[in-house]
């Protein structure tokens, strides 16, 4: 069973054909299987970040003052800039998927390049924020405040100020790791897309990476008000 393969018709010149895996009968079955699997994977991502969000909300409840003052020390303008960057990248990604559905090779590549540029911008802003924290003596994870700490007066008398910053670094750090992984995946899409690998007959990787990228965006949509605008 399944030794034969099905070749999708190339929509127009300059595209590569796709061979359906041996155990599937149709390209549609293959596409839908991959997509359902990926949705389930995204569900696990939601649960994984959900644990962090639960911890955040829990301690926000326990130490409201710490979280308010801690949040005030972040630069909400940079956070808003990053939100804008990620939303833009989400839009360009959606347009990229659209281009692959319509077999528009050049448009696909350009939309994806725009996405990576926005993502890189996001990482640069993140770097600026992290290094500012570092120079102000708030280091990731050590929970230490350096003696000449600029922030120390603001945090005096607060219960466990390092808890807020450790949660901030953990959440944005794991999110940033996802952004990096997404950038690598999109770079791969650009490389293969330029070769004409994706077209209306087969664009599964574009679709899946697109979904992943939107989830990265979704998580940030919640992280931004929680961390930067802590009410």
């Amino acid at each position: 069973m399944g030794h034969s393969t099905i070749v999708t018709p190339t929509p127009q010149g300059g595209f590569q054909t796709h061979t359906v895996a041996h155990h599937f009968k149709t390209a549609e079955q293959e596409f839908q299987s991959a997509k359902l699997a990926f949705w389930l994977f995204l569900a696990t991502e939601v649960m994984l970040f959900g644990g962090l969000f639960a911890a955040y909300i829990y301690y926000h409840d326990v130490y409201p003052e710490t979280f308010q003052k801690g949040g005030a020390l972040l630069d909400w303008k940079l956070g808003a800039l990053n939100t804008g960057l990620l939303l833009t990248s989400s839009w360009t990604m959606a347009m990229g998927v659209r281009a692959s559905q319509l077999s528009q090779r050049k448009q696909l590549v350009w939309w994806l390049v725009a996405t990576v540029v926005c993502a890189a911008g996001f990482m640069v802003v993140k770097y600026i924020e992290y290094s500012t924290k570092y120079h102000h003596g708030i280091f990731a994870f050590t929970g230490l405040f350096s003696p000449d700490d600029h922030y120390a007066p603001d945090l005096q008398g607060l219960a466990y100020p390092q808890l807020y910053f450790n949660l901030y670094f953990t959440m944005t750090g794991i999110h940033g790791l996802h952004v990096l992984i997404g950038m690598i995946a999109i770079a791969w899409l650009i490389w293969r897309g330029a070769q004409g690998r994706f077209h209306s007959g087969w664009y599964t990787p574009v679709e899946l990476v697109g979904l992943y990228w939107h989830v990265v965006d979704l998580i940030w949509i919640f992280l931004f008000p929680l961390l930067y605008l802590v009410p």
Partner: protein
Amino acid sequence: MAHGTDTSHGHGDTVVDHSHHAHVCSFQAFFGIYVTLLFLTFVTVAIAEPVSGLHLGSASMLVAMAVAAVKAALVMTVFMHLRWDTAMNNLAFLGSLIFLSLLFLFTLADHSTRQVADPIGGTPVEVKRFGQD
């Protein structure tokens, strides 16, 4: 069992058809959603206490989360095509949110309903302050 150019129907749930009719959104639709998202981000920032000085109190968290939920819903339904996707794919993703809400519900319910312990002959100590004796 070679099936060659088999076009047999009836594989599990799959809509068996060679050319799948994926939904393709228009440029206008995507752009409209994008602009709406940016606008909602502006709303989130504008009503936040550190920026506007508005005092919404305990409601501010709820409002911020509600706006974020609307943004998330827009991304999911349109950018992620869930609006046009199969019921199972919708369930797979939304199901995770339901189960996640259980984690939130019970841990927060535990926290907010815990008894306050009173130490011997002293003022009541809030259980909430861990390690602060």
